[in-house]
């Protein structure tokens, strides 16, 4: 077991790169997903920007 006498230490050592691999696979399969926004988002952006302008005007 890579020179480790304890199975728990071996598991921790192996799970570290395995979890990285899992994240890589997750990223690969979801690379293009999650770009769609809901209808209300556009209106919200305008509201957010308006609030933003108000905040700027209050700045010294």
């Amino acid at each position, binding site marked *: 077991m*890579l*020179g*480790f*006498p*304890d199975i*728990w*230490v071996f598991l*921790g*050592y192996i*799970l*570290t*790169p395995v*979890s*990285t691999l*899992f*994240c*890589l696979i*997750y*990223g*690969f399969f*979801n*690379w*293009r*997903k*999650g*770009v769609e*926004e*809901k209808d*209300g*988002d556009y209106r*919200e952006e305008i509201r*957010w920007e308006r*609030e*933003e302008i108000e*905040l*700027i005007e*209050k*700045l*010294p």
Partner: protein
Amino acid sequence: MLYLIVFTIIYLAITIYLSYLGYKKTTTVSDYLLAGRQVHPVTMSLSYGSTYISTSAIIGFGGVSALYGFSMSWLAFLNILVGVWIAFVVFGKRTRKMGKALDAHTFPELLGRRYNSRFIQGFSGFVILFFMPVYTAAILIGISRFIEVYLRVPFATALLVFLLINACYVIWGGLKGVLYTSAFQGIIMIVVMIIIGITTYFYAGGLIEGHRELTSMTSYIPQELLSAGHNGFTSFPLAGSPIWWFVITTMILGVGIGVLGQPQLNVRFMTLKSDRELNRSIPFTAIYILFTTGIAFTVGVLTNVIFYKNIGMLSIEAVFGNVDKIIPMYIDRFYPQWFVAIFLVTLMSAAMSANSAQFLAMGASLSRDIFEQALLKGKSLAETTIVTRIGIVFSIFATLILGLLMPEGIVAVATAFFFGLCGATFIPAYLFGLYWKRGSKTAAKASILCGFFSSLIWMLFFHENESRAIGICRFFFGSDTLAGHPFNMIDPQVIALPLSFIVFIVVSYLTRPVSQEVLRKAFRHI
């Protein structure tokens, strides 16, 4: 020394230039606080990673690994599974959407608006402003120990000078500056850590041989560690022993789980445009954590083989018990001077990026969370940026004082303290806020207060590490702790987090849920 000066100047010049770019682009309050919510996934990954993995991870936890061995690899595993995948997928996606829907600019603001409670925002801001300096100081101590070892300057001077440099670019750059510099710092860190990882295994005789060598060194471990449950560098500590409780509950769980409640990390999710950017950030962040944390912990343990081969001592003996000096001393003794200089630059970068994000989180807590919400009852303050800067200055002073007062070998322990405190205080209200509409405002308040105060009580009266150092328990009860083994070794978060979860659920069912209007707004994009 020449290498050191040259590399430091190059590094500082690039950092200052990038901060200047950030400053030039900082035009609005939201620019200053959230980098305009449009950050590239790779920048996000590197900045999240370098905020998460700081000097504390490399020097503090690297040193702790040298002492307790490869059982610490479980923390590296949790750093990736919990700190990256769960943090991004389970928490990050909804945090981004909810943050946008509620127009939240800070982590306490997200919680406060989700539960429609100024108290929650103000109190969360208070926790950040007054307790984050412990963690910030831990990081600062890490880098200052390094500078002390290599430049042969007094520790206090190193601490003061480094803090000053860091303060300058945070105050002038805001998060945008921090994000740019973090990405630059992240790249240097990965390259340097890979080189250290490969050469350390080479010095130790190879992967399997190095591990076997460590196994054969069990008999050299000091007797007091063996009798406290140390089982060798390649085995877990003896189950139920004091070291086992410390490694599992404080080091592995305290930091591994507590990361989910870290305000300066959670605020990063709001800087992304869509879930796609978040998905794309995951692999880069995971790789970053693997190459930094994973390598730092492994190198930490292997230093024992190398120190023993060369000077006939274990790492902990070579540094006279100060675990924070193990990694600096290892690099100093066994690497060429030009590489030492690069390593110093890497560590400075790690410390600067982590500290910067924290100073900004503390500044924002004072202006938006404590001042605007808790004290001014929601009235918008014209001088938000100025108050943010006042908050940053306060946090810099608090960090300086703590940095000078805290004892030796404290880096990993102080980090675990802050991670644990944030975990117990924020995780239930945060998680249920993202997923459970039935959760009530009263439940969130009760859970946050319960997590915070039960952590503090456990630290002051039960958990011997802290209670002995603080001394309140001895003053009132004549003993360092009110509990016997194993309770005196169980980390506060392990007690306080389940408690605050239970409190949240029970109180939610007993009280009225948050109004439909607030819920509709918060869950608009979910």
